[in-house]
């Protein structure tokens, strides 16, 4: 059942649940951040409207910089501005930022330890018709392997707004992953958000000393699909010859630094875990968790994500279904693995 402490959207499982693009949350968040701190500046690489920096550019035109289609320049100019005390949000599509300018981010942002925020929008398969060249499925891996870099993947527009405001204050190089499409609003304004602190959103009732059958760690808008899958699996009877499966779902909005305390706690009390992300399995959020648990608490892991493939053109949620990342697809993969035991 949904954890009441998480203060989630009460309509989360309804068919008419409110939907908003995660990138919209960044758009409103960066205006808020700009209001709170006059040193916040925004740079874009010819994608003002689609990365949602337009509102900021109209409210603070002197603090908005159009760099043109030049992502390498984008990252390094942002670094230079940070050196003079600005808090720059350098925005473009994730495939180009950090895709194209990875080295500039590594050297001029991370190695220089400048508090630049790299905002990668249109990440994942849901970029849709533009096709595989534009669907970043490797960006979390690219950013998390760099020292000093904080990596955040918000689950909905409300969380994205909070994440934007929070990372403007964290004084660290930060990567913020956004996506294009309208996705379900999972959280509310009252849901807590702290960089580096994961949230338990769903947990079956278990007895003292009893283990969960599995915990799902999910990130991005797929948190919603994971919740739907968990709800249906936990209500079904007769699976695995049990009365009911005991499941928890945790929102990993911060890929780096991971909330290792919470992850360890749930790994210790679960028979196995699953990870769900709109990203290659190689190097993604699941991989990060596996690295940590392999050292501290080895446990069987079922990775759910993109299996070493590129994206392709299609309707956004048609692609999600084809790649097995909708709620049904997640359920199927989970059942296939837990039945094998």
């Amino acid at each position, binding site marked *: 059942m949904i954890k009441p402490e998480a203060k989630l959207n009460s309509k989360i499982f309804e068919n008419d649940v409110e939907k908003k693009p995660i990138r919209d949350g960044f758009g409103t968040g960066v205006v808020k951040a700009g209001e709170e701190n006059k040193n916040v500046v925004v740079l874009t690489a010819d994608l003002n409207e689609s990365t949602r920096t337009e509102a900021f550019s109209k409210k603070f035109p002197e603090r908005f910089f159009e760099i043109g289609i030049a992502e390498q320049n984008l990252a390094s100019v942002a670094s230079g501005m940070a*050196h003079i005390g600005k808090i720059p949000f350098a925005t473009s599509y994730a495939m180009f930022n950090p895709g194209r300018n990875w080295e500039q981010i590594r050297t001029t942002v991370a190695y220089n330890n400048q508090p630049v925020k790299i905002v990668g929008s249109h990440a994942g398969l849901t970029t849709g018709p533009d096709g595989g060249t534009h669907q970043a499925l490797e960006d979390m891996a690219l950013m998390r392997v760099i020292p000093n870099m904080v990596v955040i993947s918000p689950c909905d527009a409300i969380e994205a707004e909070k994440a934007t405001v929070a990372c403007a204050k964290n004084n660290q190089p930060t990567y913020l992953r956004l996506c294009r499409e309208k996705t379900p609003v999972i959280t509310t304004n009252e849901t807590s958000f702290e960089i580096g602190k994961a949230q338990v959103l769903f947990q079956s009732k278990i007895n003292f000393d009893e283990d969960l059958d599995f915990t799902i760690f999910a990130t991005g808008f797929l948190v919603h699909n994971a919740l739907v899958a968990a709800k249906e699996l936990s209500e079904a009877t007769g699976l695995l010859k049990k009365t009911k499966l005991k499941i928890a779902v945790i929102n990993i909005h911060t890929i780096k630094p991971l909330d290792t305390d919470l992850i360890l706690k749930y790994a210790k009390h679960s028979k196995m875990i699953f990870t769900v992300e709109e990203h290659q399995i190689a190097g993604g959020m699941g991989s990060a968790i596996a690295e940590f648990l392999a050292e501290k608490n080895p446990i069987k892991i079922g990775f759910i994500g993109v299996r070493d493939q590129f994206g392709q053109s299609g309707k956004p949620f048609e692609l999600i279904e084809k790649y097995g990342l909708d709620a049904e697809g997640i359920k199927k993969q989970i059942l296939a693995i837990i039945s094998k035991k």
Partner: protein
Amino acid sequence: MLAGSGHTAGSLGMADIFTYLYFHELKHDPKKPNWSERDLFVLSNGHICPGLYATMAHAGYFPVSELKTLRKFGSRLQGHPHRTELPGIETSSGPLGSGLSQAIGMALAIRLDETRTTNRFVYCTLGDGELNEGQNWEAFMLAAKYKLQNLIVIIDRNNIQIDGYTEDVMPLNDLAAKLESFNWHVQEIDGHNFEMIDDAIGQAKAVFNRPSVIIANTIPGKGVVEFERRPEWHGKTPNEEEAKMALKELRTIGGKIECEQTN
């Protein structure tokens, strides 16, 4: 020589310009490297940092004796500059082509805070081989778009890069014409002539509606006849014998004056 690796030719070639900047032109305070009103110097061609480190030491940023630690484990004088290691270094560099972008970011931020009345200047040196990197040209376009009058670029036109002479490896041809067409104010000088350097910087500072670039024609390895104009000295260090010979030649200006220092 003590480090066992490093970049000789460019360090020697730019010594005059470094001297001019750190001992005459830059508004700075070696005892207050974070002084909020200082001019900024960005070394985009970070590999010639031995020249910069030596200049900074003599200017008082850190003890001259620390120069012996170049490239050694634990040293603040990293093989390529690391911003967070050494006070007075404005940015890390080494991977070529990023310095100008960063200098632009600094100039833009200063102008945002202080408007175009600012008298804080950002100086950025680039190598000529470095101009092969496309990011530089993104940066040239952007600086012209924003008419960055407080940005002054100095290109070390020494005609060498690792694989040979620049005009053989990747011809730059008429560099001045290229930069003029990008809407920069362009000057060409002898990079070893202090009067020309002084005049050019003065002109550059006086230009208001465009960023300025000074193409400094330099001799790589300047001052040691055996090193001069040879591409192989780009990334090579002298052995002990070569170092002794070179230091003697530099200190006596090719035998023209006496010098007591022997080590």
